[in-house]
């Protein structure tokens, strides 16, 4: 029995092996396929060789872990337009000053960011804060880093503290007054430089700058800016306004293109002067990114810029590694972010803005606005008080002039029915004819005693 079952199995095995060897033999025998395979191998090898020749492969040293030695080829971190698909790391820089009230909103945006969070390294600089910015920041960071959803957790997070000393207040009008601009912007430039220069690593491919007080921003902001493949790029920044100020307004006037007027103005100024945009004192007639917005325009439209604003900047890390920074001195008559744009241009980098792609800054009232709002509040209270008085007054007035004609219609009958003597009146007319008759007089006289005593009025 066993031998009988064994035999067919063996013959089956033999047959399959014979057929497969036959097919391989057939393939090898086919001269065409050999030459095709050979040709393919040749192509691949020569391509590799050619590529190495065109892009020479450089030596890469290898250091064991624990030696505290790192080797980085900066060519690998130049920033691709689809960096998120190449696992490119991005440094997310946030300068903070008295920002505690804005942080909850800021972190709600951070949670929504679609750029892979583990590729985002955060760097915060907390400077000259009188409120609990640090405490609130740490609370939010710990919350997000210990979230059950690991996709929310960020890469490396560095918090830096550095006070630069401020002579200028942080109220809207303190910050945005004309005289304050030069020194203030130089100080902010220092703060920005400290932040990026201590946090940037050789393996960062991109750097994204973001202010904490942005109210509305797409979750895809980083990808939206990155895919434009520019060295430095900014969106348009507007802010919402109350109805009485016209609903909306351009916020960031620091993004502009240089103009003849601007260059001429620059020539007339001293070495340390700083031109600031959006102030009547310096009329440069430059085209501003903010004013070129068309709400229905294509958000992909790009515009070349010379100066840029700092609310939201995406830049290749190589821009900073090459030495571009936020000049804390007057560079070509500008400072901070505007001068950063100019410096990048000077170093041959591309600087662009997106006129129809808008993010929204929060609305902070200026002191004029505050005055107006205070007046409006007072006015509202006054009007409320006035209307209250008016209702009372009207009530009294109306009560004083109440229309009682209807009541009178009802009352008069009751009132007058008691005084009405008409029913006692004789219905007969008195006949006075002949009164003047002497004869009659005489007759009266004649019957005087008799008639007068018997006088009856009803007759």
């Amino acid at each position, binding site marked *: 029995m066993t031998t009988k079952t064994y035999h067919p199995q063996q013959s089956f095995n033999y047959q399959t092996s014979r057929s497969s060897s036959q097919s391989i033999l057939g393939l090898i025998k086919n001269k065409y396929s050999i030459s095709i395979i050979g040709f393919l191998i040749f192509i691949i090898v020569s391509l590799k060789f050619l590529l190495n020749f065109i892009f020479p492969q450089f030596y890469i040293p290898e250091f064991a872990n624990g030696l*505290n*030695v*790192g080797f980085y080829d900066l060519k690998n971190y130049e920033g691709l337009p689809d960096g998120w698909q190449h696992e490119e790391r991005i440094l997310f820089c946030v300068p903070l000053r008295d920002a505690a009230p804005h942080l909850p909103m800021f972190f709600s945006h951070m949670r929504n960011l679609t750029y892979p969070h583990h590729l985002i390294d955060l760097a915060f600089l907390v400077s000259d804060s009188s409120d609990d910015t640090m405490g609130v920041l740490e609370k939010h960071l710990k919350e997000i880093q210990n979230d059950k959803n690991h996709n929310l957790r960020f890469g490396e997070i560095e918090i830096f503290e550095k006070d630069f000393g401020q002579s200028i207040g942080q109220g809207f009008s303190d910050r945005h007054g004309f005289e304050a601009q030069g020194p203030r912007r130089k100080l902010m430039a220092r703060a920005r430089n400290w932040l990026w220069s201590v946090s940037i690593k050789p393996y960062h491919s991109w750097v994204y700058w973001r202010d904490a007080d942005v109210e509305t921003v797409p979750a895809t902001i980083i990808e939206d800016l990155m895919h434009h493949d520019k060295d430095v790029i900014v969106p348009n920044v507007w802010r919402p306004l109350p109805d009485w100020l016209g609903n909306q307004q351009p916020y960031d006037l620091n993004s502009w293109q240089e103009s003849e007027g601007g260059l001429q103005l620059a020539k007339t100024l001293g070495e340390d002067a700083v031109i600031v945009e959006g102030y009547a004192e310096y009329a440069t007639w430059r085209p501003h990114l903010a004013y070129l917005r068309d709400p229905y325009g294509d958000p992909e439209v790009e515009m070349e810029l010379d100066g840029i604003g700092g609310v939201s900047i995406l830049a290749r890390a190589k821009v900073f590694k090459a030495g571009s920074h936020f000049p804390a001195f007057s560079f070509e008559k500008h400072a901070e972010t505007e001068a950063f744009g100019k410096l990048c241009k*000077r170093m041959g980098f591309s600087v662009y803005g997106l006129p129809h792609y808008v993010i929204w800054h929060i609305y902070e009232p200026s002191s004029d606005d505050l005055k107006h709002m205070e007046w409006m509040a007072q006015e509202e209270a006054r009007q409320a008080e006035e209307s209250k008085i008016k209702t009372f007054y009207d009530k009294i007035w109306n009560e004083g002039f109440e229309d009682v004609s209807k009541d009178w219609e009802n009352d008069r009958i009751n009132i007058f029915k008691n005084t009405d003597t008409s029913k006692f009146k004789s219905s007969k007319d008195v006949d006075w004819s002949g009164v003047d008759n002497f004869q009659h007089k005489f007759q009266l006289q004649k019957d005087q005693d008799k008639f007068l005593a018997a006088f009856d009025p009803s007759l």
Partner: protein
Amino acid sequence: MKAAINKNQFLRQIRRRPFTLLGPLALLVLIYYFFFSSPKSQSKYSYKVKKAGFFDRKSDVIPRNLPGDHISHYDLNKLASTPMAVYNKEKVLILTPVSRFYDEYWMNLLRLTYPRELLELGFIVPRTKDGDLALKKLEKAIKQVQTGKKENRFSKITILRQDTESLASQDEKHRHALKVQKDRRSNMALARNSLLFSALGPYTSWVLWLDSDIVETSPTLIQDLVSHDKPIISANCYQRFYDEEQKKDSIRPYDYNNWVESEEGLKIASNMAEDDIIVEGYPEIATYRALMAHFYDANGDPNTEMELDGVGGAAVLVKADVHRDGAMFPPFPFYHLIETEGFAKMAKRLGYQVFGLPNYLVYHYNE
């Protein structure tokens, strides 16, 4: 009933050829998809990771030894650069752009007496075959030190490969030709900046720029320069050579980039085109600047300071704050100055003073 159906033309058509319904139905489905399919179902971008292809080569591993929640905290208000650097345990970062590796440079570096646990090194090599050669030698030298005794190891070493293409020729004669000076020094400035900002940490107090061809300094170089407590201070760079005429070993000035601005220099600059640069040591541009190299007095006090307007990069100690404020090496003509000289100008624009030590020598390699 049947009569009613027969009377209706459309129903009759459907009864006869039911497949004619397919056309309008398909149209309805299409319309539905065009107008009612939610756009949210497809995200704007693809997040599929593109793996490195057959021809790509990315081998750098990002070292990360992060704290538990990845959060670290630095109080930069406490970061200081004082003349008592060793006592205060201030970290010094030594930066060297390396186009050629000299054993003498490395030996001299190892002779420095500043505590190694407070020393960080940074190197950048050009994107050339020369760079490969230097890198291999550097790798060997570093491995020897970092695998040695714990107390002899440097606290951290960063090596970078420059991303920008370097100029091919680095011969002594070509290197100093006036025409190629601008491109060469612009590229050098880029290398310096990349190195500086990649390696500068939140704990660095001082940055020492030491050129790869500086082969002899005092072992107390860092302590000596730190003791002057200046934002930027430059040593005087000389070269040892054999004097054929006098038949004896001698020294001669090498680096002419440490200078004090002159009336003549400013005048030349004001008449220049925006993109032109002034370089020292060329008879074509006679600036009559006071060059620190000529102020050396063999019998003078080595602590003598002089205020400068331009510096060379041979051996310069900089307070890290100066760099953090934004003083970098301009790769473009900045006030007609470039690289280290432009750096001195930028630091001055930021309100820092620049000093030199005419009687304190460091020695350049003799080619």
